[in-house]
């Protein structure tokens, strides 16, 4: 009993710690990466120890990572103000409402295989895991809509409304684009989806696509990959779908009237959403924690087998998952800094007139093909 509780706590520490650390690092990665893409140097100057205060020679700058600490300190010590004619209570709780639902999704994400002792790297392994994740991802918009309303500002209200309508438009395409995956693996359980993407046949040989590709969502549903990427990028409310913020139109959108760490919570929540998006994308399309040809009992590479302890495999898979998540988050940032923002009507048109029918079509084709195969 005590082992189970300790193991659960350890899992929570690992995944929440990873998410928080990555979200904090994404703030500086976002700025440095954008600067590299735009031929600038970006923020790289905040020193860890000031040479004047600490009497150290040279400045430790860690390629700008110290800026994370500097920014957080600045935001925490800033004046915490609320709009006079707004609703102060809702104004205060909405950053929390926008920030926290993302963390709940971590409960259903499988981030490593099963160890030799039968302990799995997934906080809760329960049936409708994907529905749970979608439900809580949508809940985040309540915080944003309430923030827009309680600020008593036209810009904020418009931002909140835009966020809501965008969420409604893209939630449909998001869910439908993954239908093909659910049809193929016949489950909504995220753990089972990941296991299905790289499983062993009954006779102990690897279950491969065309005899050499692992059955990752990437190869089974290449069309859905693009649809999901677009829809999920819209869900994270980052460029090219950042109409709720839209600096050039709405000042800062729903957090126009926010300052200090309340605004920081919105920004941080956005980066947590990026990490959650990367985790869901990895789980659905990139084989989750799987390394190609590495199974729970070792490598199976075209008849060549290499036995590896299951616990060691689980550890390798843990780091594989984190590596994939970091890669997807990085690529997401590249997309974000490549594309300009859509106009508001273009966003809604794209969601309803292109992604939604395309996702429906993808689902129908997948269903027909599966009927003929099985």
């Amino acid at each position, binding site marked *: 009993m005590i082992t189970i509780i300790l193991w659960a706590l350890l899992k929570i520490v690992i995944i929440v710690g990873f998410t928080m650390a990555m979200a904090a690092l994404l703030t500086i990665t976002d700025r440095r990466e954008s600067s*590299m893409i*735009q031929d*600038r*140097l970006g923020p790289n100057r905040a020193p860890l120890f000031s040479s004047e205060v600490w009497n150290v020679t040279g400045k430790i700058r860690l390629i700008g990572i110290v800026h994370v600490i500097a920014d957080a300190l600045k935001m925490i010590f800033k004046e915490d103000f609320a709009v006079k004619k707004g609703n102060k209570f809702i104004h205060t709780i909405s950053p929390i409402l926008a920030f926290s639902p993302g963390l709940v999704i971590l409960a259903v994400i499988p981030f490593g295989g099963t160890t030799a002792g039968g302990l799995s790297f997934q906080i809760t392994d329960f049936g409708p895991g994907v529905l749970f994740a979608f439900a809580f991802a949508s809940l985040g918009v309540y915080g944003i809509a309430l923030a827009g309303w309680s600020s008593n500002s036209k810009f904020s209200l418009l931002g909140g409304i835009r966020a809501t309508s965008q969420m409604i438009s893209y939630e449909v395409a998001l869910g439908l684009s993954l239908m093909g995956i659910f049809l193929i693996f016949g489950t909504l359980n995220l753990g089972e989806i990941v296991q299905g993407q790289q499983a062993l046949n009954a006779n102990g040989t690897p279950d491969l696509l065309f005899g050499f590709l692992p059955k990752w969502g990437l190869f089974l549903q290449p069309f859905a990959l693009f649809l999901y990427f677009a829809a999920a990028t819209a869900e994270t409310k980052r460029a090219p779908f950042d109409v709720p913020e839209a600096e050039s139109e709405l000042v800062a959108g729903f957090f126009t009237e926010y300052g200090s760490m309340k605004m920081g919570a919105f920004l941080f929540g956005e980066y947590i959403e990026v990490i959650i998006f990367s985790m869901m994308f990895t789980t659905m399309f990139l084989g989750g924690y799987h390394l190609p040809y590495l199974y729970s009992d070792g490598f199976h590479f075209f008849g060549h087998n290499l036995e590896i302890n299951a616990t060691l495999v689980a550890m390798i898979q843990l780091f594989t998952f984190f590596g994939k998540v970091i890669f997807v988050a990085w690529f997401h940032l*590249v997309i974000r800094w490549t594309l300009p923002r859509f106009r508001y009507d273009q966003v809604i048109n794209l969601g309803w007139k292109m992604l939604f029918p395309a996702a429906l079509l993808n689902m129908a084709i997948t269903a027909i093909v599966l009927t003929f195969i099985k």
Partner: protein
Amino acid sequence: MTKKGKVISKHKYTFWEKIYYPEIMKGVGVSLKHFFGNIRKRKYIPTLQYPEEKQEYPEIFRGRHRLMEREDGSLRCVACMMCATACPAECIYIESEETDDKNIEKKAKVFVIDELRCVFCGLCVEACPTDAIRMDTKEHVPPEYSREAFVYDMEMLLNKAGKSIAIQGGDPNYILNPKK
């Protein structure tokens, strides 16, 4: 009725442009080219990180003044007032005194330049017949807390002093080959 104005034809989007993803990938390609070019070697970044990296000023840059010395360490200035006369901002003040040297008539007792009044035109350097004043330090006048501190006396002007072996009337080689 004749048509007025220019007819602008709209860009017809091809099928591959309409489905958007190939165009996105092209854009991502450009982003990645710059990202990987810059992350390793700063291939496209022209930025200089100022206090650590400084841009080399050109040879003809007119920086803060300095006074030059002779081979034996004495001041080259003969207090002829040519620079003070040439100065359009009237920022140079010189007082002369007697000298034991038989070759020159007098030497400077006080030599003061008000760096706030100076317009850095370089006329004093051109006017000087003995190469006693130069503006080749490639330095800016540093900030000070008071206006008085910008009035540089002889000691300040001499702390960057160098031995001049200048040829009277300028070095023809330098003028013909400025790079050298």
